[in-house]
């Protein structure tokens, strides 16, 4: 199957997220928790409309993709996550952008280099 031309593709939103926990969590644990939260909140139909996908995750931060205009729904579902891999956790959305590059530059790299004082969790 050929990739659709950009004009025919579904529009997307990219959420820069961070996980606040005691220990580090793995990508698999996070994914399981995200899909269980979205599934229990919206059911199967609603989850497929949200079209959530975890693109990149490392160092407790990640980029999550969702459908255009479903960002508030996805944000609400992410807020209902209480535990990841058996430990208490908060999933915090740092920001939303229309491109992966935008989300990374604006919310993930800037936080690390410009404002380290706000990242005190340990």
């Amino acid at each position, binding site marked *: 199957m050929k990739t659709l031309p950009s004009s025919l593709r579904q529009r997307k939103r990219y959420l820069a997220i961070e996980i606040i926990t005691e220990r580090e969590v793995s990508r698999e644990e996070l994914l399981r928790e995200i899909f269980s939260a979205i599934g*229990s909140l919206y059911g199967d139909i609603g989850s497929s409309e949200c079209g959530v996908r975890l693109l990149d995750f490392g160092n407790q931060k990640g980029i999550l993709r969702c459908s255009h205009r479903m960002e508030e729904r996805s*944000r609400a579902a992410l807020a209902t996550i*209480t535990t990841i891999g058996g430990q208490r956790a*908060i999933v*915090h*959305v740092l920001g939303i952008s229309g491109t992966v590059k935008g989300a990374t530059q604006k919310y993930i790299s800037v936080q690390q280099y410009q404002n380290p004082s*706000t990242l005190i969790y340990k």
Partner: protein
Amino acid sequence: MVERYYDLCIRYLPEDDQAMERFLSIATHFGFKGVGIAQVPNSKSLISYTGPRNSFFDLVHGVEIHEENPSKLHSQISHCAKKVDFVMVEGGTDKLNRSAVEAANVNILSLPFGIKDGGLDHVIARSAADRGIAIEFDVGSLIRYRGGKRLHAVSELEQRLMLARKFDVHMVLTSGARSIYDIRGPRELIALSSLFGMTKEEAINAMTAIPAAILRTKRKTHGFIMDGVELIEEQVPPERQEEFC
């Protein structure tokens, strides 16, 4: 403009200064201007945090009163009201709710879910609106519960929202956090409140303007003199302004 978000009604008190600092750093990181910690009355550690206080962060001390007996409620409220920044009463049965909205010095009425002969009805809503008592919208139940319990919480919140809109009752949107991991950011609270039909404007208002108004009257700042007295700033007409120069 940066909104000054408040999350009043956090039912969690960090045990020591270290936990408190962590709590404050998370709250500031989420973008809150201030958080209110609602404690049970007569707890000793009401204002015990001795660590550094940030001037830009507002730590509000409140009290949450659980009293089954309506006649004892008034004495409890008057006992606590002068010591704290806001008074919250946990309602329950109709009698208790009625007595809570009739009492002086109550700021927020918090209603538990799933009470048969209780909850928010039009009588309570109307008198709460008259007396300027805010109703708490606790989205913590949407975070903590799954399945049937959450379902009932959503429908009850919808019902309350309908009544609050109809009678123009003040709303306070809170996370009702019971631990440090129950805190959610302002944008998350807005997204959660949209699940039961609250609009973004209402949600922002419930986290900025209404908590600020509660604190303003309680803390007696910004030209507050006493109940019912308002300071009107004298405006000098333009032609007389020139004479002064």
